[in-house]
């Protein structure tokens, strides 16, 4: 992307609150101009990490570097970061213009220039003419834009966003996601974005750190996270996934022969070290990679017979839940609502065949 690929760098960063470990020895780097997301359930340490980047909390161990400079001795008001707060934190006693101009006083900027930059920022977030409003005269989406403008007007090296879209309704949130991405591309500032919404993270980010219990499970691009998760936890958290237990019978020419509970003997591409003869592993497959058919297909794909237990209509696609002998949980199968697969009757209790291509199987280590 850019030459500066360790623009923000975390080395062994931990944060303890008493006996609680909120962030546990994190180390990764973020490139300049990235839209980087910290994704995880509540309590996973993502907000604590963001607050350490802003300077509101200091790390118990480790060091954070921004543009090469260590941050531990730099107080929040001298850091090259600005934050968009979860509830926006618009100053209620000031109007929008004064909110935007608030931080420029400390950058020693001339009065005329302040006025110009405020108007420019209002233009940027599509709120021209809103300068005299107060925060209680703004809608949720407008507040969000003001918070964004107030942070960006400072031209920070890194913009920190703490679930800024969480308080908006679904439609507005999707609109703001598109705008946020476009804005990030036009200003070129590094965004670090905290969210618990995996769809939001997938659609916005250049890279994502999936966090639980203070640890980063995987740091990768959205595509890699979805297609090549490194653990059951990540695979389960990102999108929907079917899991089957398996034992490795043999590994040959990058192909593993597996004995699975439910799918019988199958083969799958094996690239990881943990796939060794005799090892117990987990096989995962996405619902949309499974193919549903009334008769066994003749194209040589792996296949197993099952019974449709229930189905869910999701508008753009149908989800079928197919139980297979030997498997505890039914398999989720997603079928796009195009009519292509609807020539057969897919009623409840009907016996069907599930097929898959070997390449779509993901092998994961047992936790």
């Amino acid at each position: 992307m850019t030459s500066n690929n360790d623009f923000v760098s975390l080395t062994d960063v931990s944060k303890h609150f008493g006996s609680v470990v909120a962030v546990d020895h994190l180390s990764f780097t973020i490139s300049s101009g990235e839209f980087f997301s910290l994704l995880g359930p509540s309590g996973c340490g993502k907000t604590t990490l963001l607050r350490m980047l802003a300077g509101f909390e200091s790390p118990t161990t480790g060091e954070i570097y921004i543009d090469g400079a260590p941050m531990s001795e730099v107080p929040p008001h001298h850091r090259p970061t600005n934050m968009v707060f979860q509830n926006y934190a618009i100053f209620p006693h000031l109007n929008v213009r004064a909110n935007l101009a608030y931080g420029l006083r400390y950058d020693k900027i001339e009065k005329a220039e302040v006025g110009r930059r405020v108007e420019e920022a209002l233009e940027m977030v599509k709120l021209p003419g809103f300068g005299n409003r107060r925060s209680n005269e703004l809608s949720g989406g407008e507040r969000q834009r003001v918070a964004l403008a107030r942070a960006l007007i400072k031209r920070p090296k890194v913009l920190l966003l703490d679930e800024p879209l969480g308080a908006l309704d679904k439609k507005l949130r999707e609109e703001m996601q598109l705008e946020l991405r476009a804005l990030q591309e036009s200003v070129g500032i590094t965004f670090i974005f905290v969210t618990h919404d995996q769809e939001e993270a997938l659609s916005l980010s250049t890279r994502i750190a999936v966090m639980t219990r203070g640890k980063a499970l995987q740091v990768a691009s959205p595509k890699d996270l979805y297609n090549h998760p490194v653990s059951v936890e990540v695979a389960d958290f990102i999108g929907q996934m079917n899991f089957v237990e398996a034992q490795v019978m043999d590994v040959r020419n990058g192909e593993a022969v597996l004995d699975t509970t439910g799918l019988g003997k199958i083969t799958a591409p094996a690239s990881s070290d943990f796939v060794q003869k005799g090892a117990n592993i987990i096989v995962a497959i996405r619902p949309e990679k499974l193919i549903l058919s009334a008769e066994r297909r003749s194209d040589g794909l792996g296949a197993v017979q099952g019974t449709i237990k229930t189905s869910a209509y999701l508008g753009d696609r149908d989800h079928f839940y197919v139980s297979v002998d030997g498997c505890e949980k039914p398999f989720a199968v997603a079928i796009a609502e195009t009519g292509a697969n609807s020539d057969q009757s897919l009623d409840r209790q009907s016996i069907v065949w599930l097929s898959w291509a070997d390449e779509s199987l993901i092998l994961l280590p047992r936790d």
Partner: protein
Amino acid sequence: MTEVAYIDRPSRALYFYAILYLGFLYIPVLFLPMFSFNDNIYIAFPLKGFTTKWYVEMFNNQPMWAALNNSLNVACVSAAIATLLGLLGAKAVTRYRIPGEKPIIFVIMLPMVVPYIIMGVALLILITRLGFDLSLYTVTMAHVLISVPFAMATLIARFEGFDQALEEASVDLGASPLSTFWRVTLPLVFPGVLASFLLCFTISFDEFIMAYFLAGTDPTLPIFIWSQLRFPFRLPGVLALGSLILVVSFVVVFISQWLRRYRVEKTQPGI
């Protein structure tokens, strides 16, 4: 079918109770202005006739004006000091992690429940032992002591009522902690500061026991009024003064409520 929601339906019995209660509260107070215009040196029915001579007498009563002046000075200074201390204390207990925070708050709040007569005696002993003369300064000190818990309680509520992220946002935008206090914290807690000042002012203005123990030769107004009660012919003048104080406090409360409402309406259109 009725147009009023069940929970909003009026009750005759409660109306009656409300009127009774208001009467219980205010009728005794209304005797004050009534007798202050009564043309009789004795406070008794039947009323003899209308006069304003007690007011004239009151205006010519120099010692009374001196006492009122003392009380206003003591009340203003003690309310200002107590509110400042309350502001710093409330900021400290709501914004920082302080070891032993609970016991500290308990000790600060203690004067609220200790009888003033005990504290008055204790302070009297302490101050005379230390060799200080009793004066309006000692009264002011004592009033600060009893006002701080009220200031703290008022301001802690205000501090807890506003989002701490606002202060963080200010620091994040480049303001130092001190600058943040002036530009964000103080404007947002200012209604609390005003409320605290008025509360402390009232506490000091009508406080009798401590002032009685600790005032030197300069009396505060409550002590002056108390001293006048020994002379029956002075009583109507005291009533006139009391009536004036009533009117002034009513006007002050009315204006502050009106200002508050005016601000609310101005800043929240459509709500």
